[in-house]
């Protein structure tokens, strides 16, 4: 499959490989992302998982996966991927396993691991040119433990550990650039609410070798505080306001796969989410809203 294959929604695979009835929250953006990705990746995939919401997909003795799964720990899913990848390569090289038994190795973690605790293991995997795909579902906080702030939390967001009037004082870490700076095979941002863009990127990544990352922004109804029915709308607004740029890195070059034009003011995105409610009520925090908008504008001003 190459990226030309998926020209329209009609070309999207509809295998529905991921089983239903899992213990995720209603409207989980991470689950939706995984569902879309899994159909593109296919069942000959071993997911190597770090502690997070999606760890609870596979609970003994049930699993929604047609393929394989290995849960590791919070910090070391990429190291688990290294062990599985190396072992499969060794078995094929030494002719102890036929090549058709091979699997794609996919690391599946949330932002807590991808942006924070797992960075050492991730960095090592990039250094070594490990042949793997890293899929990060980025719900912008430690959602599984009740949405405490993480290194991926956006400025001003109220979380369980930044519940004051200013919300989270830090700024979302740029994981895309951290990866891209080290010249891996592929880096992309995506979101389930833009399924065509997402499927094209995963399909492209699947055909490549070496370290590949796809970060899927994952709107989280309980963590971001919105009604599950609004998930797709919030996802589309994240893109159309420019708050979540859709882009990819290939061969040293960053390309935006969607340039929102005109860009909708970011507050249209923020005001649908309870985690930003304090920016609007009891009175508007003009300074902070302006700051958030200015940073988005500055980002896009730098995009040729």
């Amino acid at each position, binding site marked *: 499959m190459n990226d030309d294959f998926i020209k329209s929604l009609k070309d999207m695979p509809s295998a529905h490989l991921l089983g239903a009835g899992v213990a995720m929250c209603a409207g989980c953006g991470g689950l939706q992302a995984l569902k879309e990705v899994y159909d593109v990746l296919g069942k000959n995939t071993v997911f190597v998982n770090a502690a997070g919401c999606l760890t609870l997909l596979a609970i003994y003795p049930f699993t929604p*996966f047609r393929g394989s799964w290995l849960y590791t720990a919070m910090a070391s899913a990429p190291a*688990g991927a290294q062990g599985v990848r*190396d*072992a499969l390569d*060794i078995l094929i090289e030494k002719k102890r396993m036929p090549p*058709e038994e091979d*699997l794609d190795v996919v690391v599946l973690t949330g932002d807590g691991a991808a942006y924070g605790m797992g960075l050492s293991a991730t960095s*090592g995997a990039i250094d070594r040119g490990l042949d793997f795909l890293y899929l990060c579902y980025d719900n912008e906080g430690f959602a599984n433990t009740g949405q405490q702030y993480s290194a991926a939390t956006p400025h001003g967001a109220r979380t369980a550990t930044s519940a004051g009037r200013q919300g989270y004082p830090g700024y979302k870490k740029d994981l895309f650039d951290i990866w891209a700076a080290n010249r891996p095979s592929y880096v992309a941002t995506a979101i389930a609410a833009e399924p065509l863009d997402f499927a094209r990127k995963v399909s492209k990544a699947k055909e490549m070798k070496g370290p590949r990352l796809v970060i899927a922004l994952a709107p989280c109804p309980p963590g971001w505080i919105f009604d599950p029915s609004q998930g797709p709308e919030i996802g589309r607004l994240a893109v159309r306001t420019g708050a979540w740029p859709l882009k990819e890195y290939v061969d040293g070059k960053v390309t935006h796969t969607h340039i929102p034009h005109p860009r909708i003011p970011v507050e249209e995105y923020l005001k649908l989410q309870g985690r930003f409610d304090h920016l609007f009520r009891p009175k508007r925090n003009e300074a902070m809203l302006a700051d958030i908008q200015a940073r988005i504008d500055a980002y896009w001003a730098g995009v040729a």
Partner: protein
Amino acid sequence: MTRQLLTGNGAAAWGARLAATDYVPAYPITPQTEIIETIAGWIDGGEMDCRMVTMDSEHSMVTAAGAAAATGVRVFTATSSQGLLYAMEMVFTTAGWRAPFVMVNVSRGLSAPITLEPDHNDVFAARDSGFLQIHCASGQEVLDTVLMAFRLAEDPRVRLPVIVNMDGFYLSFTREPVELPEPAAVARFLPPFDPGPISFRASKPLSEAVAVLGGVPYSYFRYEMHLALENALAVYGEVSQAFAREFGRTHEAVEAYKLDDAELAIVMVGCFATKARSAVDRLRAAGTRIGLLRPRLFRPFPEADIRRHLAGKRAVAVIDQNLSMGRGGILHGEVAAALYAAPGAPPVLASFVGGLGGRDIAAEEFFEIARVLADAAAAGQTPKPRLLFTDTELREVRKLQAIAEVERHETAGKAPGEST
């Protein structure tokens, strides 16, 4: 069969090579580094058909080791001290995966203060992890035990990872003549790893290490691990006999030295026990009926062997090269629990702590321990635990403190190199 002068580290590397190890995830740490350097040299020279990967940390290293073993290849790795502790989450986790691989730990004292020389607090911290744990006292034993460890780990009745321990510096860096077994003989003793149904293959999807909900399934899987470790006691006996048949060397779960007619006994693990062995010879020459018990197997704990060998002794001293803060020697507690209410259990079980951070245990100290034991046997009373430290050593520390004090006052408020 050839003999070579090998360090303990060299012997460990030869064990991995002769075992036809497929995969070595690694991370450098003193005093273990020579093991992975040796293996890397063989791989580069085409002498060993193996893949080695230097990971970003020991935590990642043990994760990769477990993941590769769970995919069905033979895995060896090595670490020490801080590295073992850094990996500790994954030490417990990969044991829970029932991933069979062998990890050599080269014992080294733990921080703080940071140091390089050996004691057993590092490896004993892995006591409850689900790894089997075997302690070696010579280079030959290290090589042989690595081979035995693979067979133990991969036995379907066990299927757990194994730590093979040696003491840093004293054993890791000391050269001894070591017999290198013939590869053909090793292949007979240790057939290729058969992962059975537990591996990742496209045609056989598998979920490993999934979450459980609640204490019932959790308890089930934890009990399964414990029972597998208990199985390992009997399997160890079989492996040890098979090893003796193939190679003519016997490595029992415990080494009993001159214990049969002994009234007094010393219990120690690791290569410092060879100091005790030599002290036993000298004490016997002077008329003291004393012997040595050296458990090689620490997990599973060979309780029956310990009861049997110590039954009828008048007094026993456990010398611990570790210290459980606020409790005392760890091995002492283990031996005491094994002997409690056992028929013929020695009435005196004394505790000595020594050899921390590579501090020597001198022959005179063994003689003093024997004297304390004899007195305690006569009185029928266990003496208070003792931390071995001499007046001379205390004076040495006082001197260091005096220097530190002088330096602090002399240089107070001054930049380095500024005259006083």
